[in-house]
């Protein structure tokens, strides 16, 4: 049974004319309200994941729950369909369980707060915000066990409940929830921050209604949705063909020995409608790498990629949803069956963007970038320090942004919107560690006319014994290059013990015990290159050697020979480039994925120091 919305004022909203200028003003005001939500959140949140890194997502929706501003699309519709209770003025909804909101949030760590905005007894809008909690209990610190077999091992699960009921705060319920966490203080502050953000936006909506009128506000949100519909319709009809194109990429492994997992998507247009079909995607994994992908969220991702190039000033909203049909097979990695584990979904979430890029770019070279959305590398470190205090760090790392049609990819930057790194001095002040190295790893970005961004080589020196968990991907398959560009380097993690011994550790591994003085080299993947590296200006290659971004050895990937004094050896470069041009291996289509899966598997141990993952579905692991 769907949610029952209670309004004390039954007067319908009148459809009124809103002139184009007023409409633009309201669009602007909504955009400002969203910025305010972000500002409120990062100022008051406490976990480094939100306050330093910005891992949180705001939304303002119309009264029907359609997103008018935000970035991940609206999940309110899914929530309303599944919620069996009533919604009244003064209520506020709190939830985290992906299975009870149709994947609106995709793992228990993401806490979502939903605020119905009432005015004069009528529901006028929704505001919502979700943010990643650093710890919500469960079997491991950080609450993202890679090897969990069901969602029950992944910390507290919050079904949709009223954190405020008709204005009354449900303190007891919150107490129970916070009690599950290893870091209740962070959770309490972050939850307050989510609530404060929703309230700020609700206040702005209220002010807009007062300024322009409630009917005008309701009509304006309709018009904004319609404007977006119109724009997307035009884009889809002019840039998506009826002939299907498909693209396949992989998640390297599942943390329990199987891999790689295939994600396939086929795209075609039927009339004005585009179909995105994930048939051919591998079945769900036994561990937590499953990604419960909400269809509407994927529509939003698709829409944003489409629009980014044409009118980046446009406000993304849900208006175009009926133009896109997303089909995801039941029981697949992207639509796992309850109670499949979900905590480690970040890798598939990232890979979805590489797939979108690969799909759209096949017809539109202006869209085509190398691969870069390869994962969201996580590092977790926890334990008790010498004074008996519990410490716990959850940190998101970054790789390289791929080479793009107009230039190089930035080194060690975030592909996620609004994310920042944690200042190393902050880490050293508040956690028992020292960052001995924090640099772009030379040559790790794929060679190309436009180089892929380098990954980061970060070396942690642990100053207290503790437990470390590492979650990353693209250690087995390569971040692919395009249009002649080469793939970026793969990720690797090396533990250098205080006694000098070294071992390669897994890229999805929990429970690594470290001692004082141990070093962890946390090295992320580079971005794929764009275009023929032999066309890159040799002087730029030489400059990047002086900058520590490329090595003399790596310059040879560009066909550039460097003399002893650091300058370009012109004649040697010319002859090397000629040789290389003669021996160029044509790739099938614009993509260079590196070696095929069988070859990767055969060379895995020798190249990566790790055993090859076993084909999913086969008996042995």
């Amino acid at each position, binding site marked *: 049974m769907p949610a029952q919305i209670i309004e004390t004022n039954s007067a319908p909203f009148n459809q009124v004319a809103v002139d*184009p*200028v007023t409409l*633009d*003003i309201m669009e602007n005001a909504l955009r400002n309200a969203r910025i305010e939500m972000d*500002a409120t959140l990062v*100022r*008051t*949140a406490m976990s480094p994941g939100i*306050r*330093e890194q910005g891992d949180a997502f705001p939304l303002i929706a119309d009264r029907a729950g359609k997103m008018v501003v935000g*970035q991940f699309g609206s999940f309110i519709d899914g929530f309303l369909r599944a919620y069996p209770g009533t919604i009244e003025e003064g209520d506020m909804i709190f939830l985290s369980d992906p299975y009870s909101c149709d994947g609106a949030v995709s793992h228990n760590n993401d806490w979502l707060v939903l605020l119905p905005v009432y005015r004069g007894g009528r529901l006028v809008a929704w505001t919502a915000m979700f943010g990643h909690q650093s710890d919500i209990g469960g079997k491991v610190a950080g609450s993202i066990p890679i090897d969990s077999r069901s969602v029950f091992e992944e910390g507290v699960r919050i079904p949709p409940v009223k954190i405020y009921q008709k204005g009354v705060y449900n303190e007891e319920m919150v107490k129970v929830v916070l009690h599950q966490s290893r870091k209740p*203080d*962070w959770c309490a502050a972050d939850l*307050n921050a989510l609530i*404060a953000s929703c309230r700020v936006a609700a206040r702005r909506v209220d002010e807009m209604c007062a300024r322009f009128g409630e009917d005008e506000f309701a009509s304006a949100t309709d018009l904004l949705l319609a*404007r977006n519909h119109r*724009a997307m319709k*035009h884009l889809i009809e002019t840039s998506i063909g009826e002939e299907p194109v498909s693209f396949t990429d992989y998640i390297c492994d599942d943390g329990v020995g199987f891999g790689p997992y295939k994600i396939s998507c086929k795209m075609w247009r039927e009339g004005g409608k585009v179909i995105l079909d994930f048939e051919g995607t591998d079945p769900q994994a036994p561990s937590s790498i499953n990604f419960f992908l909400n269809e509407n969220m994927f529509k939003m*991702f698709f829409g*944003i*990629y489409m629009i980014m190039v044409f*009118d*980046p*000033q*446009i406000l993304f909203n849900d208006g175009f949803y009926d133009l896109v049909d997303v089909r995801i097979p039941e029981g697949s990695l992207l639509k796992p069956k309850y109670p499949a584990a979900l905590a480690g979904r970040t890798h598939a979430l990232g890979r979805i*963007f590489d797939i979108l890029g690969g799909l759209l770019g096949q017809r539109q070279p202006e*869209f085509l*970038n190398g691969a*870069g959305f390869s994962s969201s590398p996580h590092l977790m470190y926890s334990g008790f320090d010498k004074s008996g205090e519990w410490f716990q760090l959850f940190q998101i790392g*970054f790789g390289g942004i791929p080479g*793009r049609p107009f230039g190089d990819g*930035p*080194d*060690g*930057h*975030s*592909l996620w*919107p609004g*994310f*920042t*790194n944690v*200042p*190393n*001095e*902050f880490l*050293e*002040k508040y956690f028992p560690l*020292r960052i001995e*190295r*924090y*640099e*772009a790893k030379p040559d790790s970005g794929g060679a190309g006319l436009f180089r892929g*961004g380098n990954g980061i080589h970060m*070396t942690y020196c642990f100053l207290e014994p503790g437990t470390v968990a590492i979650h990353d991907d693209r250690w087995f398959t390569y971040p692919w290059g395009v249009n002649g560009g080469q793939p970026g380097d793969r990720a690797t993690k090396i533990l250098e013990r205080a006694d000098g011994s070294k071992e390669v550790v897994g890229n999805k591994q929990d429970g690594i015990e470290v001692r004082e003085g141990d070093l962890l080299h946390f090295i992320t993947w580079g971005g794929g290159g764009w275009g023929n590296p032999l066309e890159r200006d040799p002087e730029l290659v030489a*400059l990047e050697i*002086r*900058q*520590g*971004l490329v090595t003399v050895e790596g310059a040879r990937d560009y066909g550039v020979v460097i003399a002893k004094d*650091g300058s370009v050896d012109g004649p040697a470069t010319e002859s090397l480039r000629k040789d290389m041009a003669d021996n160029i291996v044509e790739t099938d289509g614009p993509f260079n994925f590196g070696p095929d899966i069988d070859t990767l598997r055969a060379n895995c141990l020798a190249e990566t120091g790790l055993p090859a993952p076993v084909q999913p579905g086969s008996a042995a692991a």
Partner: protein
Amino acid sequence: MGYRLGVDVGGTFTDLLLIDETTGETFRDKVPSTPSDPSQAVINGARGLCERQNIAAGQIDLFLHGTTVATNAVLEKKIAKVGLIVTEGHRHLMQIARSLVPGGLAAWIIWPKPEPMAALQRTIEAPERMDAKGQTVRALDEAEMRSRLEKLKASEEVEALTICLMNSYVDGSHEKAVAAICAEVFPDIPISISSDILPEMQEYERALTTVANSAVRPAVARYVGNLEKELKDWGTKAKLNLLRSDGGLMSAEKSAEAPVNLLMSGPAGGVAGAVWVAKSASVKNVLTLDMGGTSTDVALIEAGSARLQRETSVGDLNVRASSIDVKTVGAGGGSIAFVPELTKALRVGPESAGAVPGPVAYGKGGELPTVTDANVVLGYLPESLLGGSFTLDREGAQKAVQTIADALEIDLMDAAAGIIDIVNENMFGALRLVSVQQGYDPRDFALMGFGGAGPLHANAMGKLMNSWPVIIPPSPGVLCAYGDATTRQRVETQRSFNEMVQNTTDGELTSYLDSLGAQVKQELEAEDVAPRDIELLYEIDIRYAGQAFEIPLSVEPEGLSIESLITRFDTEHERLFTFNLDETPHEIVNVRAVALGKSADVAPPVIEKGDADPSDAKTRDHQLYMDGRMQDAVIYDRALLKAGNRIAGPAIVTEMDSTTLVHSGCEALVDAHGNLIITLLEGA
């Protein structure tokens, strides 16, 4: 007692204001600016003014000056080649920055790769390490450091050096040791040390701020040097002081060492002037709207002082240096209006026609419709400007705005009014950032419009914000000169404290404050400020432990009580964010001391008194489009207005370098000092 001279360099005019410190009497002048070398207009203007008033060069004690030299160096990328020395293992500090890609999801697709302000090939590593407690983990290898510096010198051109080592905010001794070697290897190059410029946690922000300091140092040093030389040649012993971004003044020597504090010197002059005008108009709380050709600066003045922030932004550069909390939006008279094919939405800016080609109405080759053109179409800007020396191309403006009307399928006047509404809305967004978002209610504030276009839009902004009265001070350039001349010398220092309140005591905090206070007092005394004229202020930044956001609270060392600080923090936190965290401990993050010099006692000029009837100042009758229809209006000449005149809207008041629009339903009163005080009429 002698004279102090305030000079403001604008794009078109350089304004000068001479103040007799004994009588408070003022003398003003205005000369054309000399953009290629701004100091020419400054010196020549000053000489001319003094000669006319029969004041000898030697009688001037203080020379006070707001400058955009540092700002322009950054915006025009005419900055020094900076060598940067960082801790080993962190060479790509500036390259990786904070890893942030601005914009929403997929924004990385279109975001250009930024080039760091200190080029990587000029960034080298220091073999040393200090930990977060200030303990040396690895001592500096001096021989190795020297050899790396020599290699840098041999291979790269370096014009300024920056040193920023890990954890130097706790202990700067490693940086000083590196600096000593730098001074030997590079004897003629200015060296900026991060623990001097910004002893605060966060290595990237500290490095960037220090690099920015190095980057503008040669340009500022050159400018200050020229100015000092010319002053000397002229025969004055006046001490040269420059206006800092935070609205205080600093000595020429200090400016040359820490020019990062000058990045917002220009806008600070306007706000400082607004503070002074507000005082003369007996208004305590003011929102300022400084609208120029390409952008608009807004700020908030509360209880007579401008709200400060702990950062300064210029273009894409964002550094940690105190500045007046000025928000800038890309909305100005030259902002271009357009309608994207795909969405059919009306957009205005941030693209600007600038001074060249400028708005269509200026007839300098501009073809795209701008905000100024919309103002011309609506009749808000009469055809002749600058006292008739400049005529506007009304037909051209109409033609350009018609393209917008056609794209939106609406009437010409509605299109023009739409452009104005959108640009006002953009400024409204900025004003909200400094007011509502900081927890201030704009209805408690007056609104002051200045800059070339501010007086045209201020009345509309007052209506949008519900901020009354709207104040239009005379001539925008003079306003800045007043700001320059009437502010005080200022020295500030800040250190990280980073202690939970339960781990410190009132006594410990007090003695920390006292030591900082003594330091800034001494610095100001070194600039010849008499001890009795020095005022000391203290601030403490507090946050909930674990939060990123600190709330600055002003304190007195005497009788300081941490407990009462906590209560004040909680009140402020609740005002800003609607909640408190009862079980979370409070952390004292930073401690700051400010020493202020003496302010000038300047009486505002008084204009001739008249009665309510302004008709003596009437230029002619006029028609303009407002509230959806053509209306009769009157144009007045500001120079002829008398105190007590009341102007009913709609009306236009012109002066040499700006035009004021009074809306229908509003009335402008000319006050004793020539300010226009616009209020909403009852029932309107």
